[in-house]
């Protein structure tokens, strides 16, 4: 009987290096936080203490797209959806606060995977970029499907593109790439039988659809799920994901799960 292993999360001071709008309602944030940058693994997340409203106590969990251990920086893309992310978007270069991380379990990724398809919906792009880099660093060929509501909301493809052979776009309104959902591209791509792993993050219905296609094609699919998180290190049970093994915490067992484990 072993002692349980606590989360590797620690509280880190950070300084904003840059924080700029990159698409409609989306910002790219780079922070300096050397120990965090060195510790993060692809698919893990971090929780930001965002100053400016003392009534709001709970940290904001965000994934990351890249962590540069040498420069000591971490980059993330986030959508401004409420008051916390609005306040985060107001933090200029040089602002400081604390961030808790790394949190959770990242992309498990079969190291033997040769051709990986990454699929991002909306702001789900953030951990998908990290996934693509992780796969590429492991020697896999990576292609991507990136979906968004509309062209103006597409972000992160400049960072994703160089990591991939091909990046296909879809938009709900047809203003960029194929008109429709990501599945319109994912389905034919997986039908070719060329891919041996799918890594995806986006709205839950999208991930469910992608997972179903992957499972039908016999391809392993990992999904990064989102839950309301309070602590981010396994203490509160508010981030529950129903799995075939029972309830699991998104902040410790996840946020990345094998799609077959999630009881959608």
């Amino acid at each position: 009987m072993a002692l349980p292993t606590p989360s590797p999360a620690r509280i880190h001071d950070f300084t904003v290096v840059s924080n700029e709008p990159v698409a409609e309602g989306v910002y790219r944030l780079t922070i300096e936080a050397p120990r965090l940058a060195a510790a993060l693994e692809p698919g893990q997340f971090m929780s930001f203490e965002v100053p400016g409203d003392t009534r709001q106590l709970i940290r904001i969990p965000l994934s990351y797209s890249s962590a540069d251990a040498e420069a000591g920086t971490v980059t993330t893309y986030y959508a401004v959806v409420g008051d916390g992310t609005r306040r985060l978007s107001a933090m200029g270069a040089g602002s400081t606060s604390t961030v808790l991380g790394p949190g959770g379990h990242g992309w498990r990724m079969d190291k033997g995977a040769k051709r990986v398809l990454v699929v991002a919906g909306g702001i789900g792009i953030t951990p998908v970029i990290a996934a693509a880099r992780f796969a590429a660093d492991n020697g896999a060929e990576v292609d991507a499907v990136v979906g968004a509501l509309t062209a103006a909301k597409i972000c992160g493809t400049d960072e994703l593109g160089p990591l991939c052979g091909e990046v296909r776009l879809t938009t709900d309104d047809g203003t960029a790439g194929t008109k429709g959902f990501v599945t319109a591209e994912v389905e034919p791509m997986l039908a070719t039988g060329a891919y041996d792993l799918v890594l995806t993050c986006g709205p839950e219905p999208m991930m469910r659809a992608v997972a179903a296609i992957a499972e039908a094609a016999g391809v392993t699919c990992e999904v990064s799920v989102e839950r309301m998180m309070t602590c981010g290190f396994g203490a509160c049970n508010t981030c529950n994901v129903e799995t075939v093994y029972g309830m699991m915490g998104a902040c410790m067992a996840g946020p990345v799960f094998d799609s077959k484990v999630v009881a959608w």
Partner: protein
Amino acid sequence: MVSKVNMAVDLGGIKMKNPINTASGTYGFGWQFEGFYDVSRLGAITTKGCAAEPWPGNPAPRMAEVTSGMMNSVGLQNPGVRGLVDSYGEYLQQLSDKGTQVICQVAGHSVDEYVRAVDLFEELAPFAAGLEINISCPNIAAGGCAMGSTPEGAAEVIRAVRSHTKRPLLVKMAPARVVEVAQALEAEGADALTVINSISGMAIDVDTRRSRLSRPTGGMSGPALHPIAVRMVWEVHNAVNIPIVGVGGVMTGRDAAEFILAGATSVSVGMANLVDPTAAPRILDELTEWAESQGVSDINELIGAFEG
């Protein structure tokens, strides 16, 4: 830090090296905090409520942030007593050996389930310095609040479990009719009272007209409810002679000091653990500093020392 003030207290037979305890459900099973500090600094920890069998809890979403607080509808997800002992027993035994008391919270949907869970703790959990019976969870349909909000319901549970354990028995109280319920619990032989559990509340998304939780209501925690909790501790302190654990919105040593002055022997840190994982030892340091500032040699002189 060696304090000039004796900080040790006796919580109904549980000898704590200092008054700081943790609120059940906000501290997992203790080990989750070992990455942040040495948990054995605390006087006690109280583990997540566990039942005789594992419970899955409620669907997501289980958390909504509200003004100066949060609501949860976890619904006592727990691995069951056996799961607790199997997975975390060794850690909890080590913690206990280091001098931090382990209080195990007990959940149930019925009197019978509480008794079965207590029996299992008796059998399997030698590390438990005390058992805290949770009759006040606002997030479960049967048991919980439904039983703990009347003196009769509360008394029935404690009457049943009392004969099944000789360990100190604490009762986690609902924020309702606290004087009557506390007196009933004292009469049934409770050794200490934990005051209070989260307060049932509601947060509605007015765009979708739906609850922001998977259930219509949730339990509210955090600094928003602190003044209410302090008042309830004071009322209970004036009504019974058994010791009290003060819980509710403690973010600083001064918040903890309010509970001590109002009559609490021990103070539990709850939501603060989740937003600042290092909160509990910081609050301990701040409380110690305050006690020193009060010119006493023993924190026990300050318990109930509110002057009106």
